[in-house]
């Protein structure tokens, strides 16, 4: 299992990108985001709680996500995050540069 931390040495900013991507599915609370990433990655990626919340604050401050209080599926009060249009753009550009980086790494791995 890979633990996703904010200061990911390998690919910085990956956590932000994954959070943004997850939020394209709709509004979600912090725990939900972490669960979702873990699920979708087939339990390979585990989001560190210690990194999740600072990352969310960073996204908030940058205006890429919005937060509002609402009621969760089991009738609890929870804070839900939604993607903003600026967040969508950010996700696109981060995904693009991520793909580029990964492709480049692959090229090196295949040829070298």
């Amino acid at each position: 299992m890979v633990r996703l931390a904010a200061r990911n040495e390998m690919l910085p900013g990956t956590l932000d990108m994954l959070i943004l991507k997850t939020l394209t599915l709709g509004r979600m609370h912090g725990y939900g985001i972490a669960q979702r990433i873990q699920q979708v990655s087939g339990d390979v990626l585990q989001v560190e709680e210690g990194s999740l919340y600072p990352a969310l604050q960073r996204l908030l401050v940058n205006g890429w996500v919005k937060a509002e209080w609402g009621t969760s599926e089991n009738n609890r009060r929870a804070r839900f995050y939604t993607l903003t249009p600026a967040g969508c753009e950010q996700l696109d550009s981060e995904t693009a540069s991520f793909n580029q980086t990964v492709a480049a790494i692959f090229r090196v791995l295949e040829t070298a």
Partner: protein
Amino acid sequence: MHLFRRLGFLAQREQLDRDLRSEMQQHVELLTADLINEGTSPEEARRIALRRFGNQRSLREESRDWWGFPSVESFIQDLRFGARLLARSPGFTLVAVLTLALGIGANTAVFSVVNSVLLRPFSYPHYERLVNVWRTHDQNWIGSLSIPDFRDWQQQNTALEGIAAYTTRRLSLEGPAEPQAIEAARVTTNFFDVMGTPPAKGRAFLQEEESNGRGNVVILSHETWVSDFGSDPNIIGRVITLNREPFTVVGVAASGFHYPHALTNAWVPLVPSMAEERRDSHSFVGIGRLKAGVTREQATAQLNTICTAMAKDHPEDQGLGSQLVPLKTAEVGGVEDGLLVAFLVVGFTFLIACANVATFLLSRAAARQREIAIRLAVGAKSSRLAVQFFAEGLLLAGIAAVVALLVSRWSVVAITNVGHAFFPASRPVTTDYRAAIFTLVLAALAAVLVCLVVGWSARHISVADALKENAASVAGSRRRLRGQQALVAIQLACAFLLLVGAGTLVESFIKLSRVSPGFDPHHVLAMRVPISSQDDSNSHPLLLVENELARVRALPGVIAAGVISFLPMQSWGTNTTIRFQGAQPPVSREAPWAEVRAVSPGYYDALRIRLPRGRGISNADTASAPPVAVVNETFVKQYSPNQDIIGRQISMTDGQAWATIVGVMEDSLQAGRNQPARAEVDLPYMQAKYAYLTQSMTFVVRTAGDPLAMAKPVQQTIRSVDPHQAVFGTTTVEQIISDLEGDRHFALWLLGVFAGLAMVLAAAGLFAQLSYAVTERTHELGVRIALGAKRSDLLRIVIVQGALVAGIGILGGLIASVGLVKVMRSLLFGVNPVQASVLISAALPLMIVALLASFLPARRAMAVDPMISLRCE
């Protein structure tokens, strides 16, 4: 980063923090619930969840960093901490704040002056294009214009948008109350166009109002309209009496408009008299507006080309040239040197104040060494500690700046009171936002300076040494002591500089006051009266004055009385070319010239001016008597060195009549005691026909007692003869001289006060430093005594140390003083820049004060009890 969004987050961070906290809580609960669902026991599930989460508090802090400005927040913390520290030692805080407030406040006051006088823009639109236009003569002297010269320039130049001419005069304004002499200007009708400031009410002058018979119209200043005419809404068209003649008010100038003088309150069209139409009758000043894009040099070149052509056509215009002076230079150019000295003075005071506070802070830093070491030991970064020192310094300086700004209202008044004769009246001194910004910047600079010093000497704090019980780290303490000594030496050097400056000025002042002005200024009242001259009337305009003089002389307490057209040191530059009878009419440029005055009998007596040869002006020199003149010694030296002057005949510019020289008077220094006398011709006032010689007269009255006490009786006597006579400029002749020497008074006062303050501050700094040094060395001193040192030796050690620091400081000041005196040269009179006597008289008191300041700490050193100081170990 989007600053505004971030500021928004900062503003609601309490709410955000609450949200985050409950959100995390939620997360832990959800996680726990999931774990329980997976079959973990509830306690175990909660434990795991909490552990997964880690330290919630630090996590929240990390998150918080994203929506705040962590550095700002920690700086605010530092400020709070600093405030607590300062509040804990109120005595120290008070002294430090007051010292800094003095250093900063002095600068605020001087800056306010500089800002108001030099930096603030003038209110005339595009004032940078306004120039005063003067006539030059063979490039070597500058004078006013004649009307024909002015007209040639006006018609032929293309470089100026417009050029106007003016001359000032007093007009007596008659109203319901006593007649008053208001300052007025006779201006060409385009004056308000050139100034770019049309009247706020009514209209400017019309071209045809420049011609005879149409000129009885007046434009009043806004302030006169308000104060003397009760803001009469129907002022336009109202007829008022000026100099006994009816004038129709056609306009009211814009509020605050007073050109050419701060007190100019009325403008009338310049309708030249017959005499003023002469090409060699120079009594007008030009004010021009350069066309956009035309430089002053281009305009001057063009005017000079016109001058060359004029010189061909008119013999009077030989050697004629022009000089354009930017309005700003004309108004405030004379004060720059004085203000530079003022800035130097308060600048040094600022340095002393900073050094002083730094010395205090260093002593405190020593006391806080353990605290600092502990904080370093538990992981504080040294950069963070530096910021903390800075916060403390900033706090001190900030409070000091507030104090300085609060008192600036009074300090500015004080400084303008002293400098009133020196600052141009057209530029009132006020404190504005720029002064406030300057003060705050200076406070920040003070904080930086102080903290640099403190931080630099605290940079070597060794954690291990400091934490050792009673380890007076010898190396550290010596470094600190040396830092303090350097600071004290700097203070003493600055104080020495200021003392040298003050001493040099005093010496120059004494020299100047020993220069005789050529008359006896003590106990003489001076009072000016505008004269209403009716060119067409047959009676002499001064007949009433003759009557007034006779009655003034009869007043008890009056020893002598006379009138003169231009009192020495009050105004000068009214000159004329001279021709001796029998001599060839000289080429204009080589013609002898002299200051010319109209003088009544009694004038020489009133000022006790000696007449080494011949006689003065007497009652027999009436309008119908043969014309006579009295000349001064400089005139004789320049123009008749080898020939007996008495009996020679001269004529003036428009001289149809030859005047016989009947006497020689001692030189009066017309332009001030630091200026050489100019050649002068005095004419009996009854024989003076030129309007410029009779339009304003100054009464000079020698009194037995206080001259100002006689002001009222003299004024009443004048009014009893002529109830319409306005009076202005009542003062003493001594005051006139002192006003003329105003820049020196200003500099002397500033230097005197601040040199004194600097000496006190420097002495306090030395005292504090030595006291601290003695405390620091108690142990060492105890050991010395135990080993048999005499107590007098200890006294000597401390005093020698104080003297050494003082000596080094004075030496440094000595070197710097060479530069200072160079700057001050323009204010000095007859003083050889570096005077040994001045240096000694500055060094001596400073050394004495330094020794006195060393004495108390030395006594304490002597009283060290070896048993106690050694037991402390």
